[in-house]
């Protein structure tokens, strides 16, 4: 029997050598990283839960890998039969193990990405992840390209850079489903791994790193992955803030220094001025109240104060180091005079709450005297924020603190000037410059918080006011009437309402938000964004409310356009707004407009949404030019492809020409924050990627599409939307099918976001937010909303005229926007798997809907074929066999989780579903008599049979983590 399996194998010869997968680049240590982490994890698993459990995990992995090889549905059933035979305790451990292994694989990849040297060979069409995009924007390369290929002068580049701003807006996101305590452990695993492979480590170092690695992997595995209480907006905000603390704070000056170096390499001797706002940070965490009742005015206030406290703390922690460094005594007269003055006014007694420089500093150390004063102010600034946050009031006088940025910068600038004039520029350009750059990037508020509110809520408030004033119902007025009234009130001075205004809770909430904005320093805030904005009155309403609530420096009001129809109407709406004189004067020639990618996609399908977004931007820019307004486009992209995500630099370079012009504002959503800022190198590369791509887009604008390309795409968009809507909105049983075939219903139970997954508690697809919509389809690996519509659109134009295929291929080759759109779909197809979706159908969907599912899957295959034709590829990802292989390696974990999820859903939804359990496998070191009990008891409130809910949540988190930017 057995000897049949053991074939006599000849040694590898010329022929066999060709079958070897091929040489992996020396820089690519991914397989090693992966092996190292996973093998170690399996050892830990064995130590903790016994050899049999390990074997079960490996058995499952093997089945999955076999499935990935041949895609036989039978393999999925074999997997299913092993998985359903597990008792609740084992099932949790197994789901957790796979989810953990996926996390480890991701970490390995992150380390690999961070350290990979640039791949010089620029091959077209073979990017997939942010990571493997070979067209990666690198500053030096970009500079070289601009100088060399485009004959730009170094001065032009320097000028463009100095006037460029990239504003990254961090948003919370429910599928950022990894707990923070886990994120930190992941961070340490990543660090250990990176260090282990560093050169020149001693055997002792290695051993200690080994131990640390073991510890962190085990600690992460032993942490309950499921948050047992839902996160509040404050939790999300604090989690988001940790990235500032851990990577961004130090990453920014480091990055800017690299910009200096890159400039020097093209012959620019100057450095980027410290106050050139190359990179800015904003946040939505605690400010975005759209449909999230848990973001209260109090939350907004806390979030701002917390950020201010963090900023002051970080400056304070750094300034003593700076004082140590600034031991020079040569200074200019200006600084000398100031030092004398500060010294004369300073307290002569010792300040015991300081660790260093706690006694009065003599004027023989003039820089330290000045910086000592800065430190005092920082100390008080921090204390004040601290007290305000914990007690609501503070006895620290405002005068003792920094009130605005200028105050903070001034003494530092003084030091800088003085050092330079005494011949110590190299010293000035050290830590002091870094510090100055941090101050001008982060200010006193660390980030600027955007406020987002639905336009209806403002209408409600104004309606209450006009009703109270007895002048009618604002809500019922026409747009003209509204504008007229708003403008007359805006030009007048009289207050509109007092405390006697009858308020519902919702109205009070809106007004109190404005009061918080008025109360806090203006630099805490960025934009006031109105969603569902359609008319100029929506913008003017916010202007009026800001004035009424005595916001001293009103926030810029930014309309957000996200539905297809809104996007189409956006240029006209903005034109109407600009034609209002009052408004035009108010904005001082600057306007920001936000365009939303997620909802537009959900509404009309991705192809139409992408094209409409493109056209809307072009039109908006045109309108702004007509009115002499400088327009900043705020891109509300999700992290995932379904919601407009994808590799950053490609997304930027594919924007229409002239729409960025050196100022880019873009969301960095929760699910990609970790990938973007989770680690020092990742942070560096994120900053570099945004900066380089923005620069390149401005200096080498992408080509405008030919008229015939536009016409073709217009035609395709109509067909695509038709098909998308005919399935999603018009197919009577679609919603039923969707709810059955995906874990959407159960998704709401995951404690992963602070926001309800629906705008309104009931209703169909319309009421569902884009995130759960995409999330649910990603979980089943079907990605329906991403590709639906493309197939019929491409087919339609080819059937109409076969020459259109050539035009499509031409567009793909030469038009960055089109190329990126197609490439992203190709990537999603590479990660998708209709075989998995079929399993969900078979288990969960009622039989009469099976043909519908099959139809959709046939559509998937056909669309895939057409996309490949358009791209001129024979096979998915044919340009990058390694990436393909890598996806395949990772797919095996995801597949196990998918199968586990499908069967768990089955058991949840169909309690009569019969399973035969095998004996309990997992061993626990403590209390081996009732091993599963403790695990199950972690979730005492589940409505389902023991263990099912936790298993389900673990699979959801695992799959989301595994698919990354498609999640």
């Amino acid at each position, binding site marked *: 029997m057995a000897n049949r399996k053991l074939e006599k194998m000849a040694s590898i010869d010329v022929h066999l*050598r060709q079958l070897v*997968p091929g040489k992996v680049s020396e820089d690519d240590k991914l397989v090693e990283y992966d092996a190292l982490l996973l093998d170690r994890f399996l050892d830990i698993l064995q130590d903790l839960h016994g050899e049999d459990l390990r074997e079960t995990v490996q058995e499952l992995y093997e089945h999955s890998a076999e499935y990935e090889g041949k895609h036989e549905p039978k393999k999925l059933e074999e997997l299913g039969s092993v998985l359903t035979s597990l008792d609740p305790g084992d099932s949790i451990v197994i789901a957790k193990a796979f989810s953990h292994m996926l996390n480890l694989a991701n970490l390995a990849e992150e380390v690999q990405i961070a350290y990979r040297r640039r791949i010089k060979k620029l091959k077209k069409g073979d990017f997939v992840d942010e990571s493997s995009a070979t067209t990666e924007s690198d500053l030096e390369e970009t500079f070289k390209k601009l100088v060399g290929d485009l004959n730009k002068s170094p001065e032009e580049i320097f000028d463009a850079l100095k006037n460029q701003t990239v504003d990254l807006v961090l948003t919370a996101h429910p599928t950022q489903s990894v707990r923070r305590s886990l994120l930190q452990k992941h961070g340490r695993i990543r660090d250990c791994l990176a260090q282990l492979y560093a050169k020149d480590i001693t055997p002792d170092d290695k051993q200690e790193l080994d131990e640390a690695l073991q510890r962190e992997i085990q600690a992460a595995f032993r942490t309950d992955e499921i948050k047992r209480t839902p996160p509040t907006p404050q939790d999300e905000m604090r989690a988001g803030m940790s990235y500032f603390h851990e990577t961004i704070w130090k990453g920014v000056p480091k990055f800017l220094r690299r910009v200096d170096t890159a400039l020097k390499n093209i012959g620019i001797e100057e450095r980027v001025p410290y106050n050139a706002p190359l990179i800015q940070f904003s946040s939505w965490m605690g400010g975005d109240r759209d449909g999230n009742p848990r973001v209260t005015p109090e939350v907004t206030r806390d979030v701002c104060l917390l950020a201010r406290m963090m900023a002051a703390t970080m400056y304070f922690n750094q300034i003593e180091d700076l004082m140590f460094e600034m031991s020079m005594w040569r200074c200019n007269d200006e600084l000398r005079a100031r030092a004398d003055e500060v010294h004369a006014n300073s307290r002569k007694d010792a300040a015991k709450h300081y660790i260093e420089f706690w006694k009065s500093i003599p004027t023989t150390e003039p820089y330290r005297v000045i910086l000592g004063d800065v430190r005092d102010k920082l100390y008080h600034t921090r204390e004040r924020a601290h007290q305000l946050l914990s007690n609501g009031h503070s006895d620290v006088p405002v005068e003792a603190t920094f009130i605005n940025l200028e105050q903070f910068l001034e003494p530092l600038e003084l030091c800088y000037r003085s050092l330079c004039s005494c011949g110590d520029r190299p010293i000035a350009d050290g830590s002091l410059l870094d510090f100055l750059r941090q101050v001008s990037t982060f200010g006193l508020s660390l980030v600027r918080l955007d406020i987002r509110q639905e336009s209806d809520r403002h209408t409600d408030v104004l309606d209450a006011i006009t009703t109270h004033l007895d002048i009618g119902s604002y809500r019922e007025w026409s747009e003209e009437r509204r504008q007229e009234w708003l403008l007359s009130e805006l030009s007048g001075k009289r207050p509109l309402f007092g405390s006697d205004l009858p308020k519902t809770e919702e109205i009070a909430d809106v007004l109190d938000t404005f009061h918080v904005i008025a109360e806090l320093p203006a630099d805490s805030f960025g934009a006031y964004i109105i969603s569902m904005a359609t008319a100029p009155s929506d913008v003017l309403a916010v202007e009026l409310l800001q004035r009424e609530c005595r916001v001293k420096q009103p926030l810029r009001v930014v309309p957000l356009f996200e539905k297809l129809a809104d996007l189409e109407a956006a240029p006209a709406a903005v034109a109407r707004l600009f034609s209002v004189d009052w408004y035009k004067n108010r904005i001082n020639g600057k306007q920001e407009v936000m365009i939303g990618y997620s909802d537009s996609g959900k509404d009309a399908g991705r192809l139409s949404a992408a094209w409409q977004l493109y056209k809307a931007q072009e039109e908006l820019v045109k309108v702004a030019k007509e009115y002499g307004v400088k327009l900043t486009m705020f891109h509300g992209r999700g992290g995932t492809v379904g919601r407009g995500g994808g590799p950053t630099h490609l997304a930027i370079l594919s924007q229409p020409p002239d729409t960025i012009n050196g100022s880019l504002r873009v969301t960095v959503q929760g699910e990609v924050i970790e990938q973007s800022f989770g680690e020092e190198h990742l942070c560096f590369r994120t900053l570099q990627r945004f900066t380089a791509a923005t620069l390149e887009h401005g200096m080498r604008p992408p080509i405008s599409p030919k008229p015939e390309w536009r016409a073709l795409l217009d035609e395709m968009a109509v067909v695509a939307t038709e098909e998308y809507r005919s399935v999603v909105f018009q197919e009577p049983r679609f919603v039923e099918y969707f709810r059955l075939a995906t874990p959407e219903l159960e998704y709401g139970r995951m404690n992963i976001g602070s926001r309800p997954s629906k705008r309104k508690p009931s209703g169909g697809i319309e009421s569902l937010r884009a995130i759960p919509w995409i999330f649910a389809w990603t979980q089943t690996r079907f990605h329906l909303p991403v590709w639906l519509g493309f197939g019929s659109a491409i087919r339609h134009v080819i059937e109409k005229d076969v020459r259109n295929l050539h035009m499509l291929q031409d567009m793909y080759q030469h038009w960055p926007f089109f190329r990126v759109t197609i490439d992203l779909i190709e990537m999603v197809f590479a990660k998708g798997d209709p075989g998995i979706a079929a399993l969900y159908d078979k288990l969960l969907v009622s039989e009469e809907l099976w043909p519908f599912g099959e139809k959709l899957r046939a559509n998937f295959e056909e669309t895939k074929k057409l996309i490949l034709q358009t791209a001129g590829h024979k096979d998915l990802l044919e340009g990058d066999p390694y990436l393909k292989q890598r996806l395949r390696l990772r797919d095996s974990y995801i597949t196990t989780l998918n199968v586990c999820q499908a069967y768990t859903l089955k058991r949840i939804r169909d309690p009569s579903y019969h399973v035969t359990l095998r004996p309990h496998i997992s061993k626990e070191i403590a209390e081996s008599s009732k091993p599963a009990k403790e695990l199950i008891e972690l979730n005492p409130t589940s409505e389902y049979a023991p263990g099912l809910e936790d298993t389900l949540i673990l699979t959801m988190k695992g799959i989301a983590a595994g698919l990354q930017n498609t999640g």
Partner: protein
Amino acid sequence: MTREFELENNYQLCDEIGRGRFGTITRCFSPATKEFYACKTIDKRVLIDALDRECIETEPRIMAMLPPHPNIIRIFDLYETEDSLAIVMELVDPPMTIYDRLISAGGRLSESESASYAKQILSALAHCHRCDVVHRDVKPDNVLVDLVSGGVKLCDFGSAVWLGGETAEGVVGTPYYVAPEVVMGRKYDEKVDIWSAGVVIYTMLAGEPPFNGETAEDIFESILRGNLRFPPKKFGSVSSEAKDLLRKMICRDVSRRFSAEDALRHSWMMNVGNLQSN
């Protein structure tokens, strides 16, 4: 060692006893010593691949360099012409490899027999590695067994390389047994032998190799995946110590993979002889 005169002048060539990669192995008799030997003859004209050619030329040099070891086949004589090469080696009679032994035993070997072979293979490898020699093609067909004494001898150094403190490269080995770093085209060191030896031991215990597939490509992929399993069906009666050692030998992380010396110090190896035969 190369002689001008002909092989046939010193040895009487008898029957063919095996076939190697590039030639045949013939039993031969030396009238001078009155002993039988094995003679491996290689037709150099069939070698087209540079790497293979290099290997052939290295084999005798390496074998000559290695101090004698009871578990390594000894070399006695070498004859070279432009087109052919003949190596006269120690003869194991009847000539049986571990592969043959596996077949004759019905697929798998007992734990005690496996352990005994494992120990000898490892001590042969430890010896090679001390001399900076990497065998690079450890597999059941390259280990000869003397059923009478129970002794085994590692043979066929046709793929071996001398490291001299450096690392090696080149895809050399045999599909089931080759280490992942070789498949990936990495630079590698003597630890590749440990991987292969681990696979050999696994195969003796289970009757099938740990990484399998229908085609060579599938096998390579399975090796890269490195999912080392011990299915209860095959390993139900195998001791935990054996599995533990195998995990440490068939370990993808080269720096954590055992050396031959480490493996010999492992409890399973220390207990060889105490293991019950079954």
